[in-house]
């Protein structure tokens, strides 16, 4: 029996934690108890911005790595953070997972850093909530004080928003005192942090997601395992997308309901307005292609492949529904 350590910077609560625990339990079940996973929550071993080195150096055997902290090292994974038009959590995760798992150049790039990809998460669709104002058009963003993240934040900035830097946990107070007009976020996170108490409107953007976060493994620890155990880890990694997809969709739906009950106006952004946002995001996609090329990867090719995968999983969902509904 081998016990592997998994370093996770987040708490043991919420959909992602449940999916992480389900992954650990799944690994143990698939190996008949031979592999146990001891999860260290809350960044006890390393914080999110040291996770890559932590796993690569073997501080933990496995770890959750968030791509945005490592734009250079995790450039391939960063494809899942791009402001493409892909708001479905399950589709996004399965497409990202398929790309990461099958592209040999990505595997080689990770192996250079002593890493092996195991499975992916997502924060789900990016939306925006505001106090005493509402975003109904792309133009509404101009002049607002906004907390934004990643390329989405850059687009808000380009649209004339004044970016205020603060963590999602401080956004409640920021909105409450008027330091912030709007905060980028995810529906379940709004409810979990009770932001509906200080929001007056919440705009569903149907735009994209932040999906470059997932479980990676130290390559030496991985290579030391038997092929059967390696397979068990990989299979459990694929399963994570289904587990988290089911949980996060339910949480997001419940959160939107909570917001409505709290009197928050829930707005669905007009498709034409959404397309303006997508168009504004295009330069950042081009930048990513250049960065991927500079890292020795085929940026444009990977993007084509990723878009194809997104289309495939969208088609699968439309034809058969989500796996947990089948």
């Amino acid at each position, binding site marked *: 029996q081998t016990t592997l350590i998994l370093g996770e910077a987040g708490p043991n609560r*919420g959909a992602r934690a449940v999916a992480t625990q389900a992954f650990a339990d799944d690994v143990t079940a698939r190996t008949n108890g031979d592999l146990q996973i001891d999860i260290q*929550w*809350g960044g006890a071993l390393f*914080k999110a911005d040291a996770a890559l080195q*932590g796993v690569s150096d073997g*501080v933990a055997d496995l770890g959750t790595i968030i791509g945005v902290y490592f734009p250079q090292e995790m450039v391939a994974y960063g494809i899942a953070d791009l402001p493409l038009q892909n708001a479905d959590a399950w589709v996004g995760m399965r497409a990202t997972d398929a790309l990461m798992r099958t592209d040999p150049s990505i595997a080689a790039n990770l192996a250079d850093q002593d890493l092996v990809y195991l499975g992916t998460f997502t924060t789900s669709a990016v939306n925006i909530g505001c106090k005493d104002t509402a975003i109904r058009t792309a133009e509404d963003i101009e002049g607002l004080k906004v907390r934004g993240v990643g390329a989405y934040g850059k687009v808000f900035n380009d649209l004339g928003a004044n970016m205020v830097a603060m963590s999602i946990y*401080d956004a409640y107070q920021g909105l409450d*005192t008027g*330091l912030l007009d709007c905060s980028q976020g995810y529906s379940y996170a709004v409810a979990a942090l009770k932001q509906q108490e200080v929001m007056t409107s919440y705009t569903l953007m149907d735009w994209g997601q932040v999906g470059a976060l997932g479980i990676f493994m130290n390559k030496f620890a991985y290579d030391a395992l038997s092929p059967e155990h390696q397979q068990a880890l990989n299979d459990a990694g694929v399963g994570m997308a289904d587990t988290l997809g089911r949980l996060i969709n339910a949480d997001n739906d419940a959160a939107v309901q909570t917001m409505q009950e709290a009197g928050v106006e829930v707005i669905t952004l007009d498709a034409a307005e959404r397309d303006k946002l997508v168009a504004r995001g295009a330069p950042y996609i081009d930048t990513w292609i250049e960065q991927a090329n500079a890292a020795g990867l085929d940026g444009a090719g990977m993007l084509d492949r990723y878009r194809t995968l997104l289309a495939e999983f969208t088609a699968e969902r439309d034809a058969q529904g989500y796996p947990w509904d089948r």
Partner: protein
Amino acid sequence: MDGSIIGICAFAAVIGLLAIRVPIAFALAAIGTIGTFVIFATRTGAFTPDRAVRPTTSLVFSNSFDLIHSYDLSMIPLFIALGHIAYRADITTRIYDAARVWLARVPGGVAMASVVGCGGFSAITGSSIACASTMGRICSPEMLRMGYDKSLATASVAAGGTLGSLIPPSVLFIIYGIFTETSISSLFLAGILPGILSLLGFLLTIFIWVKRKPSAAPAFTGVITGRDKWLAAVGAWPALALFGLIVGGIYGGFFTATEAAAICVAAAILIGFAQRKLTLTDLWESLRETCIQTSAIFLIAAAAKIFVAFIALTGVAPVIVNGVSDAQLSPVVLLAAIALIYLVLGMFLDPIGIMVLTLPLMVPLVESYGFNLIWFGVVVIKLLEIGLITPPVGLNVFVISNVVGKAVPIDRIFSGITRFLAIDVLVLILIMSFPIISLLIPNSL
């Protein structure tokens, strides 16, 4: 070797090293590093030291670097600088002179004013360390100047600093809220009455102390006229203006608590220059003192972080919590056991480290007993705050010791702390026995 045995040996080794006056930062970092190395070297069963070097060095680097490499903690050097600059610009002395004149009839009035000041300042900073380092720089030297007993002048501020996390805003409540999925705003509201209760407890401690030993707080002996009071109050305006600027700025939505530190330093410099009380040389000397102090404080905090990561690897925390969980205790005994666990861990580890190590296991246990998680959060934070002033590792005491330097040895601060601890335990028992103290405000809103 069993990880939890390594963990317990490490606690003993830290006590041993501190007893032979090894600097706190070096003791924690050395034991944390050696322990981490042993764990990584023996993980496979055989002793493989060559495989332990890379993970060990990576762990010690990332934990210390990440602590220092922080935006939120930038408030600590800035608030320490504020203390130095305000002292040199005569801002703090004036408010203390005002306090002495106005509170001449109150035994230990200036110490009480300092603790109330800590309470007010804790409404600004989310962190006890920031609260203690700023107020320590401002209050303790002034009390020493007025001839206050050294223990009283330092321990009162170390204790008062613990209000920083109980009175909102509070980083510890935010982390607790994340780990329990409870409302952070409810937690903030729940902390208010216990915070005020603790504050009153500290005031009572000072009152009893000075009643029993009046020489600990020399009373103002001169004749005070109404005009003296008026002049003293007018002289204190810069300090009051600074306080108004911070509170108005944060609660008016102009800036965050982290940003407030920078704004305040800028304002204090402007006031100092405008009143011709501050020179460029003074300013630079203040900054040099600030940097030396900040660097010593962060070295301890970084070493404590390394030690926490090592303790996480040992798995000693789950062993303890599972032991309590398996014992099937009655609710009252369980609460007592939990209090004991947090107090013992609080002797060695920092509050955030303890929460990260224990909450994932503790919260399900507490939930299974049907306890209210908001109230339990207040209990946990109060316990962690007590840990900040208990020996051998009491971060608030180290901060005060660092700030007052040669004037007061650390043992004197700890000896003063024991008196505050006695009443703090009473306050804790009240908070634990009467959940309504915590829940009254969040439930009524």
